[in-house]
């Protein structure tokens, strides 16, 4: 049983560019959450997708957007990249029918470097 998979594992972009990160949830899961983990800090909640809709959003600008597909996989898009967007981006999946925070399964993340 595959767990949460994220691609790519590493990415280097320059300021002003746009980036798309991808996540496939654990088999049987229908909810995907995205977190940003800056160096030396804990993860910060970006948003959560359930039934192809953004269910909740954290304190992130509109440059951060997402999408969930019918197969429950998800994409995180960041436009107009800033140096401060350099971070590890983690995807977590769960079952939306229950309290989604009860048990999150995380992927290994995408390390984004903005030069």
């Amino acid at each position, binding site marked *: 049983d595959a767990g949460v998979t994220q691609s790519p594992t590493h990415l280097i972009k320059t300021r002003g560019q746009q980036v798309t990160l991808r996540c496939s949830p654990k088999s049987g899961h229908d909810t995907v959450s995205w977190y940003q983990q800056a160096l*030396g800090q804990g*993860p910060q909640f970006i948003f959560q997708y359930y039934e192809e809709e953004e269910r909740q959003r954290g304190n992130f600008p509109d440059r951060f957007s997402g999408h969930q597909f019918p197969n429950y996989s998800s994409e995180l898009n960041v436009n107009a990249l800033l140096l401060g967007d350099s971070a590890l981006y*983690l995807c977590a999946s769960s079952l939306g029918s229950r*309290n989604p*925070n009860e048990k999150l399964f995380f992927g*290994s*993340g995408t390390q984004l470097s903005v030069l």
Partner: protein
Amino acid sequence: AQTVTQSQPEMSVQEAETVTLSCTYDTSENNYYLFWYKQPPSRQMILVIRQEAYKQQNATENRFSVNFQKAAKSFSLKISDSQLGDTAMYFCAFGTYNNNDMRFGAGTRLTVKP
């Protein structure tokens, strides 16, 4: 707003000994979850242990146990018989029943020495 504080940026312990990691949190909620996650060099966050606030009994998972003090808003993690594989970043996290925004502390880097 909910906040999570981990006051120990780094800790070390000898193999086979016991270590306790500290965490405090602030919330006005009465019902919530508390978690400890482990993040090894592979970067994947792995759930170590979970505590529901309405349960008075402290959670245990094999060598891992917590000391949950609801009134003091304290949630420490005890690792017994430490193993080299326990070397990792440990994050304390807080979640509520009606909010999907899980809050994490800044983490404690634990090194288990042979």
